[in-house]
């Protein structure tokens, strides 16, 4: 691993304390986020706040299974985010497909298509597990180990090849105007 400059270390510790998240709510995991945000578990005390647009977001939450149609949108959204960006995969669906492992339209392993920094096991993970994952991600960012965005840049050809193999084309068609 490359040695970080002092400025990068400061920037990393700032990034770890202020994670703005974009939740891509495709699956059941979205249901676990409202209790995590509100009074009982309150993730704002760690500096984690929801953001409405990918441009301002730091972490993307993939909350469950992804079929090929939504995967295109996820890749688009991921590429729109500004650079130190991190991905959290929720539940077993993003690890190995979960109960949708033999579905014809669902991808099994998210890591082939976009780099994932932290996985949360379970179906579905409880809010405690989600907070644990946030803290683990913060620790990783502070140490400079959460380098998914660098891996995506370095291995862009490989990721693109996987995306095209599963999707045919990554381009999202405008269904209403074409």
């Amino acid at each position: 691993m490359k040695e970080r400059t002092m400025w990068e270390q400061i920037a990393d510790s700032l990034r770890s304390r202020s994670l703005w998240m974009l939740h891509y709510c495709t699956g059941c995991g979205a249901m676990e986020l409202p209790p995590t945000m509100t009074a009982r578990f309150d993730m704002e005390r760690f500096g984690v706040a929801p953001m409405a647009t990918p441009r301002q977001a730091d972490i993307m939450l993939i909350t469950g299974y992804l079929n090929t149609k939504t995967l295109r949108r996820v890749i688009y959204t991921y590429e729109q985010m500004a650079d130190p960006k991190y991905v959290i995969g929720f539940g077993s669906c993003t690890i190995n497909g979960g109960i949708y492992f033999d579905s014809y339209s669902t991808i099994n392993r998210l890591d082939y298509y976009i780099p994932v920094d932290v996985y949360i096991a379970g179906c579905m993970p409880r809010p405690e597990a989600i907070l644990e994952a946030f803290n683990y991600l913060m620790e990783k960012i502070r140490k400079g180990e959460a380098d998914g965005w660098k891996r995506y840049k370095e291995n862009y050809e490989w990721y693109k090849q996987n995306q095209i193999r599963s999707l045919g084309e990554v381009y999202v068609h405008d269904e209403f105007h074409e």
Partner: protein
Amino acid sequence: MTAVYKAILNLVIAFFFVISLEGIARKITARIQRRIGPPWYQNFIDIFKALSKHPFSNGWIFDFGVLMALGGAIATAAIIPMGSTFWTPFPNTDNFFVIMYLFAVGSLGMAMGMVGSGSPWSAIGVSRALTQMLGYELPYLVVMSSVMYMYKTSSIHLLIEKQATNGWNLYVMPIGAIVAFISLIGMLGKKPFDIAVAPAEIASGPMAELSGKYMGLLQIMHAFSIFVEVGLFVDLFLGGGSLGWFLVKFIVVWVLATLISSVLPRFRIEQMLKFYWGVPLGLAFLNALFVLLGWTF
């Protein structure tokens, strides 16, 4: 030369004081919702983190608009008097009209830059923000005209001095002060009037395309705008005093606005206009009539 030092002090206070207050406002909202909430310095972390990211630009109009917004806000914050003639950086330019015009430069720069990003959400957000400006400016300016008519001056530090002999404007014209406070909540973009920045409906409105450094600059600009808006209200309605008293009054007004905003839902755009052009505008005209007839306390 001292004027420049005082202006720099203005900006330093505007930056550190207002951003801390924004963090405290998040804490207050969290406590009202029975959460723990982020630490008070969370907004500093947010801003410096945003400045450390690698942003996307959307052309030079976009870059220029963000810089113009920040520059306009800084220029306005530098000339705001802080509670007394001594803490007035530029005693000849602290005219109410100068401040309002300079302040509009920031808003227009933001509008230009955000529309320049080409995102439809930004265009909708900007049109909402400018409509809201039309809503709150009208009652606010009617109240301000009656204040300036009563004291026969539009210089802010002279108005502060007049209040020292005459009593706070809050007591002299209570109706006007209430209307100005309602307009202030709209100016700050706080809860019943946060129509322009509606994250759930139009993806943060004007900020939809802002990433990284641009977002950080705009947050700093927002802090300076808050300093101008609340500072003007404190100067014009809550009398003068030392620098410490000015900051205490600032905190009281800000916390009151935060408490009101943390328990209210959001208006729709036409409800907001109906609200502002209904009761507050009527009360503003009533206040102006009282001032014209000399019926003040």
